[in-house]
């Protein structure tokens, strides 16, 4: 591992100034992903700016009745919060499905949002990877891609976004508060992420040195009846092959509102807008749920080894909606 400097500024503004002044600086939260990538040689920053002790670890109400969650709160503390568990159960369940207890105790939520793909080619510096080294090629398409994307990928990159938490947050229309050299702004979380296209190395729409300071959750009534389901190769401590975050509100036997996103299937947390449109006003039946799943997965372009994900995603969504329709 290459030597690097470490700094622990007292305020978010100081942290931004430090990163802005250096061409190869990285923010350090819990370090559960970044430090691994430094050991692998994927990341080689010359300065780590520790933002884990900036006291951004509170959960509080917003004026519109939603919640604001500090960027530095740990995954464990977010999932344990009684308000999150009651009002946004899909978010608590998604966080609890990720990694292990030890990692959740350490990892921050901003770091969770910005964690990198676990594509084996991205993590192996002896292999080409357009995401890690632009223009070097993507061996995954003709190589090992069983775990990789069926939606939103490009000829340059078929990686998946690994987060569970981000899937639930995208379904909830969460927004992220950012602080950069030019001040503050707030954007929808869904707009933070970029599809790979022909520039897979540009993973987000963050400006240079921009820091996530908080996540806002809107007051979303249907979210109280929601869940997160995850299918993986082993029962725990594994990334998703396919996951779904879904919220469902039913009135008079018909779907009044729904929020749906998939994980493990795309380079970004995948909001299933087509499925949501197909459900609007439809009878809350298995047939409607299957039609909604088909409407979304019609977009899928699976690779030879991961075609199973299309069926898996459809079945997982239908079963999750059925269970939510019976509560």
């Amino acid at each position, binding site marked *: 591992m290459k030597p690097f400097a470490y700094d622990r500024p007292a305020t978010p503004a100081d942290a931004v100034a430090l990163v802005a002044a250096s061409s190869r600086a990285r923010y350090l939260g819990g370090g559960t992903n970044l430090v691994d990538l430094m050991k692998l040689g994927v990341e080689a920053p010359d300065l780590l700016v520790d933002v884990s002790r900036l006291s951004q670890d509170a959960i509080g109400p917003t004026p519109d009745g939603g919640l604001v969650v500090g960027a530095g709160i740990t995954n464990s503390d977010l999932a344990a919060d009684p308000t999150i*568990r009651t009002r946004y159960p899909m978010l608590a369940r998604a966080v*609890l499905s990720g990694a292990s*207890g030890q990692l959740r105790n350490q990892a921050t939520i901003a770091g969770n949002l910005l964690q990198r793909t676990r594509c084996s080619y991205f993590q192996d510096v002896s292999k080409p990877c357009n995401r890690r080294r632009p223009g070097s090629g993507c061996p995954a398409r003709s190589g090992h891609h069983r775990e990789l994307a069926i939606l939103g990928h490009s000829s340059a990159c078929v990686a998946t976004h690994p987060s569970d938490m981000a899937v639930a947050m995208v379904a909830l229309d969460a927004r992220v508060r950012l602080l950069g050299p030019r001040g503050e702004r707030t954007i929808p979380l869904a707009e933070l992420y970029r599809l790979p296209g022909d520039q897979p190395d540009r993973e987000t729409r963050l400006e240079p040195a921009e820091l996530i300071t908080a996540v806002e959750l809107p007051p979303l009534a249907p979210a109280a009846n929601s869940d997160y389901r995850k299918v993986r190769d082993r029962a*725990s401590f594994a990334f998703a092959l396919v996951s779904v975050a879904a919220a469902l509100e039913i009135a008079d036997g018909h779907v009044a509102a729904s929020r749906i996103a998939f994980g493990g299937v795309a380079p970004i947390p995948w909001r299933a807008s087509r499925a949501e449109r197909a459900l609007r006003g439809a009878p809350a039946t298995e047939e409607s749920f299957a039609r909604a799943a088909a409407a979304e997965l019609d977009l899928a372009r699976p690779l030879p080894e991961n075609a199973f994900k299309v069926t898996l995603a459809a079945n997982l969504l239908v079963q999750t909606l059925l269970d939510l329709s019976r509560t």
Partner: protein
Amino acid sequence: MITIEGLAEADELHPLQTAFVDRDALQCGYCTPGQLCSAAGMLAGEADHPSFVTPDLTRPPGRLDDGEIRERMSGNLCRCGAYVNIVRAIADVAG
């Protein structure tokens, strides 16, 4: 912070250590300090919070059954595969 060296009281083993011996919950022993510390942490109040396998997230399980123990211990790997007896040993202490 308590490490494995601090779990026993002088010559008196921690109840989890005794249970691991009684249940033959190890083979090579390499992972055992981590298994014991994770189990001790888990039994010291973590049941006040739900896990991924808790059916109702608004109601923490209180008592940890085998499914809860397996989920909450999943970050500790045992390459000898002593998992079955590790769960037995922890369940003995969890009551």
